[in-house]
């Protein structure tokens, strides 16, 4: 109960914040929320189940193009587009998982990385359709999501917040459930949970598919909310970012990815005002986090202050 009230309070605080922020920061918040949806799903696989994937950009891109292509090519509405992207992310993740989960550890990282790279190259290869690096710009009817105009700051932030709230509550319900306990068991000791009668392959495949659904809806949402889908979003960098957000906010915490995404977004925002080499910040953050703070911000808080935090 305490847990649910706490997270609802966080969502209310976010909504209040959304109403008060000036336009520039409100826009940033919308982006952060969409990236946080992505990272929350990533964290389910990485933080809770112990699957370190380097291929989530593929699921993000699947959602992005799963929504953007039908919307721009065949004039599909934005809402069905969003649903399509959601499903595309999950389907691609499940397909990759069927193969990649036959491996573990470093091999799993490389296999997912290679699938994502093949996906990125495929987007480039079919640049007649996908627009390649130039990308697709969505406009007009494609930006009307359930009667809300996504070209307007207010409705856009509202939709982003709604998507994040849904993602957060679903993740919370998942990790609090019996299945969530099994996920942790996979992370802590796969052999032992196999001995207890759980099938690691099935559990991990299910989590990876759920994680893919998150990535898919985040990708689709990102395309529809900001009106652009490009090959850059399927590059390896977008596999690294959710990992970075999770590590920074706290791997294996429900709110960690949001905190990590927000902190990293503003870090890069400030750095890019100073230099074109803003990715330097990402690199330094990764090394410092791995060396000195492997538990991340919320992991630290949970250890010292709020031991009941999920």
């Amino acid at each position: 109960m305490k847990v649910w009230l706490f997270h609802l309070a966080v969502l209310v605080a976010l909504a209040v914040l959304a109403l008060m922020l000036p336009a520039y920061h409100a826009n940033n918040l919308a982006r952060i929320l969409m990236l946080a949806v992505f990272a929350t799903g990533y964290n389910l696989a990485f933080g809770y189940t112990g699957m370190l994937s380097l291929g989530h950009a593929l699921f993000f891109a699947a959602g992005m193009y799963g929504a953007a292509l039908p919307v721009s090519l065949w004039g599909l509405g934005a809402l069905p587009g969003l649903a399509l992207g959601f499903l595309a992310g999950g389907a691609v993740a499940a397909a990759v998982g069927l193969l990649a989960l036959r491996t573990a550890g470093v091999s799993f990282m490389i296999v997912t990385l290679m699938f994502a790279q093949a996906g990125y190259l495929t987007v480039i290869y079919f640049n007649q359709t996908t627009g390649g690096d130039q990308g697709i710009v969505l406009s007009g009817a494609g930006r009307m999501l359930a009667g809300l105009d996504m070209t307007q700051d207010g409705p856009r932030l509202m939709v982003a917040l709604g998507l994040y709230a849904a993602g957060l509550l679903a993740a919370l319900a998942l990790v609090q459930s019996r299945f969530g306990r099994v996920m942790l068991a996979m992370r802590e000791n796969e052999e032992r949970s196999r001995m207890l009668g759980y099938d690691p392959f099935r559990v991990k495949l299910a989590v990876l598919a759920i994680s893919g659904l998150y990535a898919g809806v985040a990708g689709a949402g990102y395309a529809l909310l900001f009106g652009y889908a490009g090959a850059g979003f399927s590059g390896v960098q977008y596999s690294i970012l959710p990992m970075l957000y999770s590590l920074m906010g706290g791997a294996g915490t429900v709110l960690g990815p949001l905190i990590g995404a927000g902190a990293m977004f503003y870090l890069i925002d400030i750095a890019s005002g100073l230099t074109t080499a803003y990715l330097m910040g990402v690199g330094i953050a990764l090394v410092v986090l791995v060396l000195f703070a492997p538990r991340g911000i919320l992991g630290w808080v949970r250890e010292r202050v709020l031991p009941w935090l999920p």
Partner: protein
Amino acid sequence: MGFGPFLLLAVMEGLVSAAVLALTAVGLSLVFGVMRVVNVAHGAFFMLGAVVAWFVAGHVAGPPVWGWLAALVVAPLVVGALAALVDISVLKRLNYEPEAVIVATIGVLYILEQAALMSFGPDARPVAAPFTLRLQLPWFGYSGYKLFVVVAAAAVLAGVWLLMARTRFGLLMRATQVDRNTARAFGINVDRVYAGTLAVAAVLVVPISQVHYLMGADPLLLAFITVIIGGLGSLRGTLVAALVIGLSDGVISMFWSPTLSKIIATLLVALVLVFRPQGLFGAKA
């Protein structure tokens, strides 16, 4: 130009890329075989070697060959020193934990790439070849330097093989493959051999392709592919895989498209890892 000569050109181009590929991959395979460490910053080290080569070549007076030779000495030293620094200040402190090492070396990759962007700039820059001999075949002329690269790569690889197979050092290295803890104690030397061969590869390649701060991306990917298909830690497998991938890359790129050849190669790696994790030539782990 008929189909035959065209194929010959494709094969020659493929041979050159196979030679460079083998050089970049052999170090990666060595480091993985002995230290069980996957270095994602691999491509960035390669890029750094190329940038150092460009810098040295630009600051040595006289004919291009002097600058090139100077680069051949300086670049391995600089890259080797940096590899040692990363090893001591980051990897050792992580206890060579495989997953943490990957995350940390991704960080190192970004740091090096962006440092190059800030100092070297976003433009691609050429480095003059040490000599400009042109081989005139009946159908087309071909750069003599490219053929020299193939010969030089073969020489370096033979050297690495001799080191690993015929010396006491190599014996120790191979012995440590069995024992992780001992491997750590010896690991740092491998790290330098690795960085050294990588830098030599970079110096060899800059007169062919230009220096650019993102030039590490392709070698990183291809080297991974080569090492995995050849079997992690297997020297011979790496060489065979480099030849196969280099040649097929040359041919597919020439007749279809470079992107298509990369898609095929990356998918191949994923499938090899899934269905034959010891690589096509590696022994069962």
